[in-house]
């Protein structure tokens, strides 16, 4: 589904991604862990098409297509969804309005009829139920004045509405209490099928108890330095990242 080869990316002339290799197949869950500032969000944003990051080398193929050639909106329409680490507040645009514009843009691209107001609302209510979201959040401006937890929940709610093939969750667990974490993780799991894949960026093992990964990768200084089974996450939780950094230095 997703194949990243030797990806290099910089922002304002600073190289942040220094050669990422990653392959994700349909039906899989991958976790990406790593110290602060190692480039996890950069990787996620580059995959979603953020123009502030310049890709200087490497390639990314998504379902056989050259992902880097595609506009951010086309990536979304092709089924990529990024749950932002810091969801953006958009004053003056209601959540409903925003979601409807998004859903209908995606449906149109996929050759589906636009949903009318009644069907849209029914669908939205059902997805809100899954995430146990407060209905008043629908009429409020996108993310404006939402608590940290509400913002994260809203991201997964949008994901549920848009029904992506490849979901990238960037620290969706941070800022969630244990109950909210379980609800959000349940929401993600409900959306899992053999056809779609999830990449979870996290600092903590606890989310991975709910969304169990097939592979865990460790990103250090802009590249994946170690990959392993889900037990690797436990080891990282215990030992931190320094030993990996040292291993890197030894290799170099």
């Amino acid at each position, binding site marked *: 589904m997703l194949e990243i080869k030797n990806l290099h990316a910089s922002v304002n002339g600073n190289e942040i991604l220094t050669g990422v290799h990653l392959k994700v197949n349909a039906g899989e869950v991958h976790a990406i862990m790593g110290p602060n500032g190692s480039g996890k969000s950069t990787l996620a944003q580059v995959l979603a098409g*953020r123009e502030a990051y310049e890709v200087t080398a490497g390639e990314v193929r998504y379902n056989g297509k050259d992902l880097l050639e595609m506009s951010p909106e086309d990536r*979304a329409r092709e089924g990529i969804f990024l749950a932002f680490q810091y969801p953006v507040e958009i004053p003056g*645009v209601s959540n409903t309005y*925003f979601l409807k514009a*998004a859903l*209908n*843009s*995606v449906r149109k*691209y996929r050759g589906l009829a636009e949903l009318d107001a009644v069907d849209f609302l029914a669908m939205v209510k059902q997805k809100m139920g899954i995430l146990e979201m407060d209905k008043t959040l629908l009429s409020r401006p996108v993310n404006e004045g939402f608590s940290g937890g509400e913002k994260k929940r809203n991201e997964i709610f949008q994901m549920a509405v848009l029904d992506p093939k490849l979901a990238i969750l960037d620290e969706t667990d941070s800022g969630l209490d244990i109950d909210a974490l379980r609800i959000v993780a349940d929401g993600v799991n409900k959306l899992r099928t053999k056809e779609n894949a999830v990449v979870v960026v996290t600092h903590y093992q606890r989310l991975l108890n709910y969304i169990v990964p097939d592979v865990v990768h460790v990103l250090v200084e802009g590249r994946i330095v170690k990959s392993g089974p889900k037990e690797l996450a436990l080891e990282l939780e215990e030992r931190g990242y320094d030993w990996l950094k040292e291993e890197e230095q030894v290799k170099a």
Partner: protein
Amino acid sequence: MVEKAAKPAGERQGAQIEQYLSAFRSFERGLNGESASPIHAVRKEAIAHFASTGFPTTHDEEWRFTDVQPIARAPYAAGTPGTVSAADIARWTFAGLDANRLVFVDGEFSERFSTVRSVPSGGAIMSLARALTSGDAAALRHTARHARYDQDAFTALNTGFLRDGAFVHIPDGVSWDEPIYVLYLATGRTVPFVAHPRNLFVAGRNSRCFVVERYAALAENSYFTNAVTEVVLAEGAVVEHDKVQEESLNAFHVGSAHVSMAAKSNYTSNSFAMGGAIVRNNITSVMEGQGVECTLNGLSLSTGRQHIDNHTTIDHATAHCNSHELYKSILDGSSRGVFNGKIFVRKDAQKTDAKQTNKTLLLSDLATIDTKPQLEIFADDVKCTHGATVGYLDAEAVFYLRSRGIGIELARDILTYAFASDVTGRVKIEPVRAALDRLILKQLHEGRRLEGL
């Protein structure tokens, strides 16, 4: 430049001024017996004032960023108004607005298209010319008493040619909730002309009313609207005054509103400027008693080579008054915007609470704005804040929308619309608010898709 500035206005602008003086002479001839009335003495004084000052130049501090030479040197001719149909009027009536309406065609009152079904007892909704000739006490008492013609050339010109416009008088204690709609429609007459609309809205003690003033055009012809509106609020009066300016893109529009507010009155102005080649809006509001609430909201949308200038003055002349001001501009193409917001807090105006916000959204690299908050505070126990921002659409927000599958054009339009709706949302008359929303959507690329949402 220096040489020019040193010469008196009359010499510099001889031909430009003469055009108006000769028009004034023929205007006088047409007045017949009315030229003996006290109003005519005011006209003569005002035109004399204009003759001595001429048009302002960019050397005048108040006109630094707005060059009115194209307005001043354009030739205008007198003539009869063009024709409009009932369908034209219907098109320029706010859908769903059940209102008494006064219609002016190319500046002339249209008896035929004006419909006044009900008038508050003891009050009036009629043409100002009729009110003055019939000796309406409120009209005579207030006309030309509030707009100072000795301080502004355009107000002087308007006062010189003062004859007609909309007159509304709501008597003491009457809550008149049915909006009053005043429409100035330009027909697309091929010969350029000047209109000097003169409006007077008088709200009695503890009365309430809603007035909507709209300037629109059937074609993109050139003409010059030089309007003056006087608004008088007696003690405890509440007035919402909406102005929607959609002149032809080749027209000039100078509109000045002068608002006098007695104690405990509450005035709200919502001013929308979208049309016109060169536009200047002045609002001067003076708090004459304590406990006044004054709210000035404004939104400008411009593109191409349009120039829209908003000058506001809030004069806190007395204590315990509040003012709230929000002016926004959206500039596209190579249009230019100007905002000047003066707030005076006089020595005795203790416990003043004044808040001014000015926000500009630039949609193009070629658009520019000159913005200047001007707070002059002479009292010490006051709360005054102001803030101005100028910027492009937030790149992070655009990306966020795109990352959800929304195309770049629609994403930009959604954010632009949201910026504007912060002001349109403040209009209390629902049909006007809805019409403004549609007008804004029409200006956006993907407006039709937005409307469907």
